[in-house]
């Protein structure tokens, strides 16, 4: 039933541009007691089971944490993120007290509600290719801080208990090993378990994985990974700590191991599925009776909550110098309360921090705020952005009258696109730029470039920018998936437009070749070979020889890429880390086999030498 609901709702939600999280929520709402009533009482149980999805998610977050990245972004993370959580939590706590909660409850509430939804926001940012913009980076920093902040929150909550947790809150409450032991021994055991995780991760787990990886059985590797996560979760529960904390730690410890990517990709499907279940269960547990009884209060709370959060975000955005367009996006994107709230709510129920009625009410509020987010983002994109900030097109013309005569369109003016643009501009080649970063668009327009602001994959934008009359479009947008979308749009609506496509790597190139692309430019190929040439020169090779060798290698590599593309399985979309390794091995082997072809026989005088020797004798 759960799976059926998910299978139906998620594609629908995605089609409507609402995002998968919303789809899951809707699925839960529909099949839950409110509408179809297929599931009900056991909703709570499923919630617990699916919480495991959150546990796994934290493992993956720990895994993906890059200490250097964190250090580099420390200013935004601690500054922007820290301030956001602190200010929002305090403000909301104050409001909560105004509504009559005790200060301990209010504090917990404030902390829970200050969090935003990593899943929704990051997914949306990625889908729209906005990760590298100022709003993307700021959102990322804040979400990162929030992810980390969850850990101390989990530790602090038990201290905020206002009453003894209901003894029979749920039958699944596991007896911990440490119940009944004196406090200081409990603390020791907790610290000990944490130490065990860290040490085991460093010294036991990696050799274990090495052995498992040597069997080359993917399933065993996945099973081991799951076993690891489950094991840690169980250990943590036995000790009375949050399982999520334990797996987060494990993730961090394994973050710099060689199996990081393998682990990520193997665990990902489980995480996705369980998270999906989690959201369905959340949707099902939204108490619609409560909402029906007091609709105004619920909606009022939602509006109040999201307004407060947005305002705090907007002010902070101004302090951290976000441009207007980006700031509005930032404030809207993070205004909801995230999925962690559900986890923290059930945790606070268990620990006796918040009473059930309050939790029930706020769960509904949070769910609604999440549901509203995609809608708000849509409104922002279509209604607000065009009005307040960067206009879609400087000339306010009707889309019908297309005056664009430029032969070249450049979609995406980041590092890649801008270099091409500079080169063409120097030669007075007329070009139209499409970009979705309002800051960049404003600056480019000031420099006199013809720029259209918006999502380059949109047909109407392409049409307005003159795609019907242009001769060439350079597809330089990010990420790779958006490029494929754009390719399909152009194939459908502008079949005569020649496409020159940016490619991240050979795997991206395979997808593009499958889509029929002929002109594919792997980002790093030319530059890497240039480094190779310089390396050879520094080692004493003649410059001309090295250059010719590099050009020869380039031609051969391109030819091989096409050959390999034609023999791969076209249905394969997800490329596991191991297959990436295999591909590398294959290319190196091919290189060596073709070493003969790479030999430069120009200006060889062997033959003449031989002949003159023979003539002498």
């Amino acid at each position, binding site marked *: 039933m759960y799976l059926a609901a998910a299978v139906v709702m998620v594609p629908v939600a995605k089609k409507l541009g609402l995002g998968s999280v919303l789809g899951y929520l809707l699925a839960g709402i529909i099949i839950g007691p409110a509408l179809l009533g297929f599931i009900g009482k056991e909703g709570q149980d499923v919630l617990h089971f699916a919480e495991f999805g959150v546990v796994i998610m934290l493992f993956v977050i720990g895994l993906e944490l890059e200490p250097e990245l964190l250090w580099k972004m420390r200013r935004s993370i601690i500054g922007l993120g820290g301030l956001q959580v602190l200010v929002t939590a305090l403000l909301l706590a104050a409001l909560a007290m105004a509504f009559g909660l005790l200060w301990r409850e209010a504090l917990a509430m404030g902390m829970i509600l200050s969090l935003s939804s990593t899943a929704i926001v990051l997914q949306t940012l990625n889908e729209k290719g906005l990760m590298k913009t100022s709003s993307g980076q700021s959102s990322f920093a804040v979400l990162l801080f929030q992810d980390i902040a969850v850990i101390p929150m989990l530790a602090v909550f038990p201290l905020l208990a206002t009453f003894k947790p209901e003894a029979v809150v749920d039958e699944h409450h596991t007896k911990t090993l440490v119940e009944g032991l004196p406090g200081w021994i409990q603390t020791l055991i907790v610290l000990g378990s944490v130490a065990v995780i860290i040490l085991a991760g460093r010294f036991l787990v990696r050799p274990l994985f090495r052995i498992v990886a040597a069997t080359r059985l993917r399933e065993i590797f996945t099973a081991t990974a799951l076993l690891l996560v489950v094991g840690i979760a169980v250990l943590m529960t036995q000790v009375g700590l949050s399982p999520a904390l334990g797996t987060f730690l494990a993730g961090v410890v394994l973050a710099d191991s060689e199996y990081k990517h393998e682990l990520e990709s193997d665990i990902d499907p489980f995480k996705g599925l369980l998270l999906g279940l989690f959201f369905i269960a959340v949707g099902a547990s939204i108490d619609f009776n409560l909402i029906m009884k007091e609709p105004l209060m619920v909606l009022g709370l939602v509006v109040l909550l999201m307004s407060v959060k947005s305002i705090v975000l907007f002010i902070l955005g101004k302090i951290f110098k976000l441009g207007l367009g980006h700031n509005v996006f930032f404030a809207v994107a993070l205004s909801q309360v995230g999925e962690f709230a559900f986890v923290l709510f059930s945790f606070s129920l268990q620990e006796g921090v918040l009473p059930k009625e309050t939790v029930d009410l706020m769960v509904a509020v949070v769910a609604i705020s999440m549901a509203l987010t995609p809608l708000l983002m849509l409104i922002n994109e279509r209604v607000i952005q065009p009005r307040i900030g960067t206009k879609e097109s400087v000339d306010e013309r009707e889309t019908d009258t297309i005056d664009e005569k430029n032969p070249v369109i450049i979609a995406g003016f980041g590092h890649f696109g801008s270099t091409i643009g500079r080169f063409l501009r120097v030669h007075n080649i007329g070009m139209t730029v499409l970009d979705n970063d309002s800051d960049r668009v404003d600056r480019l327009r000031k420099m006199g470039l013809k720029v259209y602001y918006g999502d380059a994959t949109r047909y109407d934008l392409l049409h307005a920018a003159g795609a019907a009359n242009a001769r060439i479009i350079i597809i330089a947008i990010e990420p790779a998936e958006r490029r494929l979308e754009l390719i399909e749009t152009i194939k459908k609506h502008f079949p005569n437009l020649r496409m020159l496509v940016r490619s991240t790597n050979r795997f991206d190139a395979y997808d593009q070749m499958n889509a029929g692309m002929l002109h594919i430019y792997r980002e790093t190929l030319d530059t890497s070979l240039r480094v190779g040439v310089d390396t050879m020169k520094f080692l004493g090779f003649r410059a001309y020889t090295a250059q*010719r060798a590099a*050009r*020869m290698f380039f031609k051969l590599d391109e030819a091989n890429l096409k050959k390999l593309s034609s023999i791969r399985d076209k249905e394969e979309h997800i490329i596991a880390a191991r297959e990436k390794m295999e591909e590398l091995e294959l290319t190196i082997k091919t290189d060596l086999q073709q070493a003969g072809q790479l030999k430069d*026989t*120009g*200006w*060889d*005088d062997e*033959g*003449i030498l031989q*002949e003159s020797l*023979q003539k002498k004798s």
Partner: protein
Amino acid sequence: MAKLLILFAHPALEKSKVHARLIRHINQLEGVTFHDLYEAYPDFDIDVKREQSLLLNHDIIVWQHPFYWYSSPAIIKQWEDLVLEHGWAYGSGGNKLQGKKVLNAITTAGSREAYSTGGRNRFTIQQLLAPFDQTAYLCKMQYLPPFVLHSTHRYSKADTDMYAVQYEQLLIALANDRITETEWKKVNYLNELSPIPEMIQF
């Protein structure tokens, strides 16, 4: 029918007036293959196998180029250095080009008078084309008299058109075996086999 291969070398065709006109209809001539070297090898990485294959498949080779510093643009030299391999084009076992014909089709700003022993350039065109002549000889090829256009900077559009037609006519004649060895052995310039009245000649 003889198959003609035009090895065209112009590094800046967009600045050319005469060559651009000479090649305008060349693709329409039967039995003539037009091969633009600077376009095919902008990085000078001549594909030797491909060039050798082209040579094997044709009977008459024409090096068409402007006369830069009494010789060809650099890519022709690169082409010669790399394509005419020992053991293939010359030397022991090197007879793949035996019997084929080759000639230069050049344009120059200098006048015919300048290119004479007493003239400003001190050497005749034949003397200055000696390296090509000898290269052909070593490759056991027949070196035909060159097609030469002098004083090109003085041409009007009409003059250019006129010479372009002369060039095309000679190419067609060569492609259809209309020029005998006796005939071409008699002349200094191939142009003489398709005469233009003295009055309008340069």
